[in-house]
């Protein structure tokens, strides 16, 4: 029987997948026996959502940008009539394994380990997870290996923490395992707070059992009895799917007491975060699970010794756990075969910003940035110029296009002044002002600083104030040096990762784009025309229809002109608020 699958991740839903699903349901019900309808997670092709797949055995056809009308056409012509609508197929697989479709460049170079099931299975079905080899890794960990052997296997795979710091996972597990037996915890950090990163959300929504299985294996390895998944409350769908997965796993004996008769007892609870970026820091995360304000603690003692409720705790992020079942089933050597010498395996990147094909891509470590952006990502939108990528979110930095041959791995990226981070990769073009971008990130970290230590609480505020005056056109001589020295101090004197990395966006843009800072401070000019107080607004007389809307919107009366005649802006009166630009429906107002 033909199976019709609709991508129902958050990105699919926001692009209209629900309406497509509703339309298809009516059709399937009207033609009983022709096809079954199902939901799946995110395949990563966010830029072509909503996606609909028509699957017959191994033959798969994925249609992109499907609206209810196209869904009806797919149903009548393809499902009922057997005709493939080739012009709408983004990716297809034939019975012999051959692939074709308009988006082959996007999926072709990928190696999908973490995303192995995303977009393929119904995330709410344990049967489908098991049919893809699910929980085989757990069985191996329970019955074929000792806890020490599990840890050895993870060590041998070379897997390093995917939350950003890149600490070797097997080594981390061995610390918690070495603690005396007793109450221990396994924690999964699913508080994906970096703006511009959404890989963890897609895994939780698309393959929740993979994360659970990884956590249960960890519990076996370190001897833990209770697990917590700390998930962002902004991800309601992920929370719901995790809870369904936990319930299903418990019914089938993968969770609870005496798991599969092995003697291991382990429970998992979902804890919803309440919106604090600092809770991505593990000790702050523990404080939040304990019901307190999420403020970091001084380390040592490290979590392996004294973590959640002062008990030995192992904390990894979503992507790290999702790798574990694959490593156990396929062997450490198979995993270590991907990547570079010190950064093994694959990494999921969230491509966003000015890139043509935004979405999730999982690639072997060590792939040059250029291949990710220009190859998989399809280059820059609207044919503009590739300026830089921003990696690691507010803790990271910019890597200019000139260094696009840098391989993505834990050794090479920090050398550029950026960090691997959790895998957010925001692509920037020539319309992005780097000073303004630094201000944006500082504003974010300043707002999210928990206030515990002085350098983070006040240092980030002073950095922000300097950046704000620069983008307002009030920069002072010596501001660059002030930013550099203060940034260095905040880095060195802050207690946790938030403060230690907060100056990175400033320091890395100062390093690569000193001329942009100079232009703002000395010439009172923004080369990218992004800082409104530093640009002039002009009306293009060719495009202006004289509708007068902009003149009405102007609070200072700087725009004048006769009805139905091109208007003009008095530069001396204009306060550069940008309102007229937002008002014009004809694109007649531009920045100069």
């Amino acid at each position, binding site marked *: 029987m033909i199976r019709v699958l609709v991508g129902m991740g958050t*990105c699919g839903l*926001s692009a209209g997948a629900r309406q497509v699903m509703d339309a298809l349901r009516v059709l399937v019900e009207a033609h009983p026996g022709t096809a079954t309808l199902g939901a799946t997670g995110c395949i990563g092709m966010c830029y072509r959502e909503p996606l609909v797949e028509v699957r017959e055995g191994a033959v798969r056809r994925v249609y992109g940008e499907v609206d209810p009308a196209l869904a009806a056409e797919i149903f009548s012509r393809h499902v009922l009539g057997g005709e493939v609508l080739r012009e709408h197929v983004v990716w297809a697989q034939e019975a012999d394994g051959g692939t074709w479709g308009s988006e082959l460049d996007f999926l072709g170079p990928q190696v999908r380990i973490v995303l192995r099931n995303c977009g393929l299975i119904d995330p709410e079905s344990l049967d489908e997870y098991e049919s893809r080899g699910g929980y085989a890794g757990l069985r191996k960990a329970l019955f074929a290996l000792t806890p020490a052997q599990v840890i050895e296997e993870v060590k041998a795979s070379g897997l390093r923490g995917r939350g950003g710091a890149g600490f070797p996972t097997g080594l981390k597990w061995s610390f918690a395992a070495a603690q005396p037996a007793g109450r221990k915890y396994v924690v999964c950090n699913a508080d994906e707070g970096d703006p511009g990163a959404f890989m963890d959300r897609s895994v939780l929504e698309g393959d929740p059992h993979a994360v659970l299985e990884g956590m249960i294996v960890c519990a076996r390895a370190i001897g833990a009895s209770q697990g917590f998944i700390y998930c962002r409350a902004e991800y309601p769908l992920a929370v719901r799917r995790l809870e369904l997965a936990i319930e299903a796993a418990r019914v089938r004996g993968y969770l609870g007491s005496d798991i599969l008769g092995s003697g291991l007892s382990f429970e998992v609870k979902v*804890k*919803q975060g*309440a919106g604090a970026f600092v809770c991505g820091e593990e000790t702050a995360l523990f404080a939040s699970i304990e019901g307190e304000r999420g403020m970091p603690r001084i380390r040592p003692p490290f979590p392996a010794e004294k973590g959640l409720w002062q008990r030995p705790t192992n904390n990894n992020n979503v992507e790290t756990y999702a790798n574990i079942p694959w490593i156990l089933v396929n062997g450490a050597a198979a995993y270590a075969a991907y990547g570079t010498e010190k950064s093994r395996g694959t990494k999921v990147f969230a491509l966003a*910003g000015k890139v043509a094909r935004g979405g999730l891509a999982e690639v072997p470590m060590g792939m040059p940035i250029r291949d990710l952006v220009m190859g998989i990502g399809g280059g820059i939108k609207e044919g503009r110029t590739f300026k830089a990528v921003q990696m690691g979110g507010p803790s990271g930095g910019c890597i200019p296009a000139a260094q696009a041959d840098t391989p993505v791995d834990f050794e090479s990226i920090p050398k550029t002044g950026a960090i691997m981070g959790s895998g957010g990769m925001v692509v920037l073009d020539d319309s992005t002002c780097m000073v303004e971008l630094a201000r944006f990130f500082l504003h974010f970290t300043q707002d999210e600083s928990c206030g515990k230590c002085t350098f983070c609480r006040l240092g980030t505020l002073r950095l922000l104030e300097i950046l704000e005056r620069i983008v307002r056109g009030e920069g002072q001589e010596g501001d660059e040096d002030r930013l550099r020295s203060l940034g260095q101090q905040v880095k060195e004197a802050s207690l946790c990762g938030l403060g230690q990395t907060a100056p990175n966006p400033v320091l890395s843009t100062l390093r690569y784009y000193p001329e942009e800072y100079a232009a703002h401070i000395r010439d009172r000019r923004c080369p990218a025309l992004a800082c409104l107080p530093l640009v002039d607004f002009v009306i293009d007389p060719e495009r202006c229809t004289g509708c007068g809307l902009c003149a009405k*919107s102007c609070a200072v009366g700087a725009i004048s002109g006769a009805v139905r005649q091109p208007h003009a802006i008095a530069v001396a009166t204009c306060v550069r608020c940008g309102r007229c630009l937002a008002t014009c429906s004809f694109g007649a107002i531009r920045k100069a």
Partner: protein
Amino acid sequence: MPTNEPFATRLWRYDGAPGELIPLLQSAQEHFGYIPRGAIQHIAGVTGIPESTVYGVITFYNQFRLQPMGRHLIRTCVGTACHVANARMINDTIRDELGIEVGETTPDGLFTHFTVACLGCCSLAPVMMVDEDTHGKLTPASVRKILRKIKREAAQREAAKPAATAAVAKEQP
């Protein structure tokens, strides 16, 4: 324990288990739409956690609100991808259209406007959510269209109630 359990049941079932304060606050907010003073006193009374500590936790996290919300919640994304796609212009448009700053509620109680760090649908940037609906690839014109439609529908609903007609006429000159 399911996370969506009603506030009263959750409070009633509280057995002193550690780490329950934030889930209690979340269910209170789900129930009332914000956290009223009475709920703080009630939670403090049942858990034995001082009111000042409860208040401290509420104000630490972005999720919790101490003021009631408007009927429609607008959340504009100010994540990196939306930022570089000019999310600021979207916020400015909302400010001009509704006359409120971020974090405020319109005097008629129809809209509350918040920003969020990232909604996670970066390829649709710039994005906003109005209640549960996500709107992507926004322009100032499309934002105005969406907001005006909601205003119009609210006005129509009000007009359908005969007694309230006069009040609506005053609100929308």
